[in-house]
């Protein structure tokens, strides 16, 4: 113990004898360690930033679709079954522990009218306030829709940026009223810009309204696509009977008023077209999928062995691929940083060799007064390690400074990485040991007689 402290003291004294040289030598290690720390932390930060971005794009979102309905051997395709309800969404949010939020979704493709402007948005979502949370979609102007709006089927809506541009050339939309199939909807808020999604579709071309409003007041039927077709057909300017009313021929006998009253109205099922589910982290997606499957099978009274009447999809694969890319980038940058650390190590070795030559007589003297080869070896190795560790500590400080600079400039979520710091200290000590070894070994092999006479 005494020996180590004494050797350590000797090492410090030797380094203090030439402070500028020690500082410059250490600089190589400082730069190396600082870049390793900064690269690891910035890399982790960028990967977290990418994850955040994908979260806002819906990477940690599950979508539950109804299964396929079939009649007489004819399948109507995925999503045609009338099985999912808003209550299913509420039950998922309530009963699945790994689910952060769930929102039902009703969609349609309808024309919006505002004065002499009209537009058919890509997406019309009838949903609940939870949808905005799941999609991480803030309202930049006005207010979001509320649960009261959903319960009351209030005639309110939120517009995406594209629709605001198309319908309101003035840019002021909040408080104005638009018409959807002659139903007036008051614009209560405008959604933040999101840009294109991964399929290249404009996510801002959207109108969001309470699902009850869309389902019961606007579109009035579960099968909007069919409705849309008939609605379009009836209102189509290409329809011949509108262009040429005289030539219109009545193909079917007109139903009388009493006949119309006797015809049963199609029953309006409270079904929805899908359920958006948010999961806190990507890793929990499989578990959440499992929970939702169990819950919905139970709610839909499906027997074991019977196929599920719904499908659960997610975008995890894409986000995982991107996460891998980011990890690869981090590893690459860390590799480059490690090379600079290696260069720093070579600098240490160089200076230690110079130091050994310069201090040949000192080494001879130490041997003459009783230093063994091992003592000389440990003294010089320790000197190199002290240099490297000092460099490592300063490098950690510099690296943290650099990462916090990047954090403030780019607003990436960069956190102090304790494993990186521990690894850096270990690497610095290791570099000192490896690159200090050869000069120290050379010193320890000196012949004391020759060394004492060295000029």
């Amino acid at each position, binding site marked *: 113990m005494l020996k180590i402290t004494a050797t350590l003291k000797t090492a410090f004294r030797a380094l203090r004898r030439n402070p500028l040289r020690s500082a410059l030598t250490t600089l190589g290690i400082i730069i190396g360690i600082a870049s390793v720390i900064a690269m690891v932390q910035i890399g982790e930060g960028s990967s977290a930033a990418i994850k955040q971005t994908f979260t806002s794009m819906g990477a940690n979102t599950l979508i539950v679709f109804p299964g396929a309905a079939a009649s007489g051997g004819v399948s109507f395709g995925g999503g045609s079954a009338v099985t999912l309800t808003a209550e299913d969404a509420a039950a998922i949010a309530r009963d699945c522990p790994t689910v952060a939020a769930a929102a039902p979704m009703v969609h349609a493709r309808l024309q919006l009218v505002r004065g002499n402007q009209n537009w058919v948005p890509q997406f019309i979502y009838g949903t609940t306030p939870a949808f905005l949370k799941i999609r991480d979609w803030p309202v930049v102007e006005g207010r979001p829709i509320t649960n009261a709006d959903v319960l009351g089927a209030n005639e309110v809506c939120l517009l995406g940026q594209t629709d605001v541009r198309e319908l309101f050339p003035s840019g002021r939309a909040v408080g104005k009223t638009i018409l959807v199939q002659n139903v007036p909807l008051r614009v209560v808020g405008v959604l933040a810009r999101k840009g294109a999604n991964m399929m290249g579709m404009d996510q801002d071309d959207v109108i969001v309204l309470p699902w009850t409003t869309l389902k019961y007041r606007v579109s009035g039927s579960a099968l909007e696509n069919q409705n849309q077709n008939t609605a379009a057909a009836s209102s189509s300017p290409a329809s011949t009977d509108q262009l040429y009313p005289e030539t219109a021929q009545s193909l079917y006998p007109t139903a009388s008023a009493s006949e119309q009253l006797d015809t049963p109205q199609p029953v309006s099922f409270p079904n929805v077209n899908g359920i958006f589910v948010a999961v806190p982290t990507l890793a929990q997606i499989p578990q959440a999928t499992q929970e939702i499957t169990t819950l919905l099978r139970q709610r839909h009274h499906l027997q074991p062995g019977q196929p599920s009447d719904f499908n659960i999809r997610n975008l995890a694969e894409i986000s995982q691929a991107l996460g891998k890319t980011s990890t690869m980038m981090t590893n690459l940058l860390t590799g480059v940083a490690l090379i600079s650390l290696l260069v720093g190590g070579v600098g240490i070795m160089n200076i230690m060799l110079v130091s050994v030559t310069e201090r040949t007589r000192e080494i001879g003297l130490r041997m003459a007064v009783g230093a063994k080869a091992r003592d000389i070896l440990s003294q010089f190795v320790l000197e190199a390690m002290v240099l490297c560790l000092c460099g490592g500590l300063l490098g950690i400080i510099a690296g943290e400074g650099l990462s916090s600079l990047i954090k403030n400039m780019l607003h990436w979520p960069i956190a102090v990485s304790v494993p990186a710091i521990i690894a850096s200290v270990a690497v610095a000590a290791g570099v000192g040991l490896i690159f200090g070894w050869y000069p120290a070994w050379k010193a320890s092999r000196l012949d004391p*007689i020759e060394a004492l006479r060295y000029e």
Partner: protein
Amino acid sequence: MDLIKTDGLYKTYRLGGGDLAVLKGVSLTIATGELVALMGASGSGKTTLMNILGCLDRPTAGSYFFDGQEISRLSPNQRAVLRNSKIGFVFQNFNLLPRTSALENVLLPTNYVEDGLSAKAARQRAVQWLERVGLAERMHHEPAQLSGGQQQRVAIARALVNNPRLVLADEPTGNLDSHTSEEVLQMFQQLNTGQGITMVLVTHDANVAAHAQRVIHIKDGLIGDAVAAGPAGGPPHA
């Protein structure tokens, strides 16, 4: 009792093609408590002999008993331990560590003491020796701030800090003026008579040799007549 006893020491260097014999059968004895001068011209082999006597080197042939122990077959590490505990060196050019205080210089050999020495005890001993060589008030000075004589006295204190059996001084006054030389040589004599430390002064200077109790001449790798000399001591050992 003999502290040093050599019998037929040979040292041969391999140089280029042939062998160069520097010591050609040196046999000598030095008793405990003697102050001996080892005299010879340059090239006579006196430095080689000193290196062997100081356990820095080992002979090609012959035997060397130091303090009753056969030295010539010891490993380098064993010799290092021996040098540390039993032999002190004083060099012509002092060989003090630059930018290091006199006290730290004196403490240097204590760093390598085998079974450990507490920092406090070591410091106490070093201060004591610095007092004895008359440098107590300068122990925190660096070598550059000391005169040549003072530097050599620091070196003497360093040689003595581990209480050795033998002090080997290689041309200890070679870099000093005559007045300071006299001081240093008197110090050697004092330490010899006062502390009973065996001293070997290696020199080519008859003046220095005159301070010894006995002069051993070496010429062409052989011991000449061992002459008892000096007023200080009678012949303790022939």
